[in-house]
């Protein structure tokens, strides 16, 4: 990420501004997503941003519910939605979603890039090539079908039943690696399009991961956007064999 120099003095803080805007957008989108609730077609919204209504402990209920929220500051910042039919606005919960799910996504993405830098580079180069993104998304979709078929097949066996969690774990790791590579690719795209100054690649990846988080918390469409990114990530990891430079080759089997 060293092919441009900060020409304008204002560009020196370009990355900080972009990251700040993405963070604020993430919190605002999470706020809207919480207010939209679990309505169709967003059945999994609560799994990403949580509920807008705070669960209060009752004498007969589980007293551990608020064990990790002793200050209960969030209870004082719940507002009625200005739009009829939507749930309450809970900015504290939105910030909490950003600092938990958003930070988790960023840390996992950066961790994958730190551990596998050369593999990530190889994968991103192939993602940025012509038709790279479409092929990754298509391969991800096919991989989901393949994984579902294999898991369903294994379900009807006893011997290989224990392999199912392993298959799921490998798929999850592959998808995470792919999402990390996509984050870096998005960061590089921001660098080129916005003509931002040179920066450490992990900062660019951080911005890319924030874009992924922002996509995931778009009301109604977020779950589908996240599913598309995860599928593309899985497909990218499979197509590039976890970013291997040699790729898939069966030459060694053909002697």
């Amino acid at each position, binding site marked *: 990420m060293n092919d441009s120099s900060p020409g304008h003095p204002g560009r020196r803080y370009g990355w900080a501004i972009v990251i700040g805007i993405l963070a604020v957008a993430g919190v605002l989108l999470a706020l809207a997503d919480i207010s939209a609730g679990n309505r169709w077609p967003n059945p999994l919204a609560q799994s990403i941003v949580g509920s807008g209504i705070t669960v209060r402990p009752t004498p007969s209920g589980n007293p551990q519910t608020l064990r990790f929220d002793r200050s209960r500051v969030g209870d004082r910042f719940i507002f009625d939605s200005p739009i009829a039919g939507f749930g309450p606005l809970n900015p504290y919960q939105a910030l909490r979603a950003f600092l938990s799910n958003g930070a988790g996504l960023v840390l996992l993405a950066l961790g994958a890039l730190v551990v596998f830098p050369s593999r990530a580079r190889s994968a991103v*180069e*192939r993602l940025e*090539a*012509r*038709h*790279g993104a479409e*092929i*990754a998304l*298509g*391969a991800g979709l*096919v*991989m989901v*079908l*393949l994984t*579902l*078929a*294999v*898991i*369903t*097949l294994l*379900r*009807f*066996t*006893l011997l290989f*039943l*224990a392999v*199912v*969690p392993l298959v799921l774990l490998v798929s999850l790791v592959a998808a995470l690696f792919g999402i990390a590579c996509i984050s870096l690719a998005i960061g590089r795209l921001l660098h080129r399009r916005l003509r931002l100054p040179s920066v450490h690649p992990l900062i660019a990846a951080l911005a890319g991961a924030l874009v992924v988080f922002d996509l995931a918390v778009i009301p109604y469409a977020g779950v589908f956007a996240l599913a598309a990114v995860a599928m593309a990530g899985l*497909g990218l990891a*499979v*197509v*590039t064999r976890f970013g291997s430079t*040699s*790729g*898939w*080759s*069966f*030459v060694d089997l*053909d002697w």
Partner: protein
Amino acid sequence: MNAVPLACARVRVLLESYVDGDLARDDAPLAAEMREHLAGCADCRRQHHQAVSVPFRLKALISPPPRASLLADVMSSIGPAKTGYRRAWTLVAPEAILAAFILWYLSGLDGLSSIASGIFGDLQSLAGWGSGTGQLPSVPRVDIVLLIALIALAAIAGYHLSILIRLAPGALPTRRAARE
């Protein structure tokens, strides 16, 4: 000019530059000595004759004309593989049909979720059986038609994946292409 005549070994060393004309340009007296030596030494003359004939033979060689399909072959090998793209798209249809059939057979998403929950329930039973606190879970009965559909879906998806991997930018050539 040197009084000592050139030895054959020295002539062999200088022969290449003599044949190329470099020696005559850089050191004319030495080239004249070479000429004298070659006139008197049959062995070195034969070497000289062979050395002279190699550049002439190389010049006499004509390049074989390229085959008519060369340009088209090169363009097809570096251009987008249209056949591969078409095949990648056409495979979506059987996959969609099989996936829809399997979903219908399993009674939709409810059936899929019951399979998922069954997997983890059976895994817990398996772990319990392993630790000696439970019974071995029983394998659910399954229709052959469903198994065939699942295997077909897995096979088509695997083949589809191999096509997409080949289409991906920077992919290695296939075994057949590598042999050719």
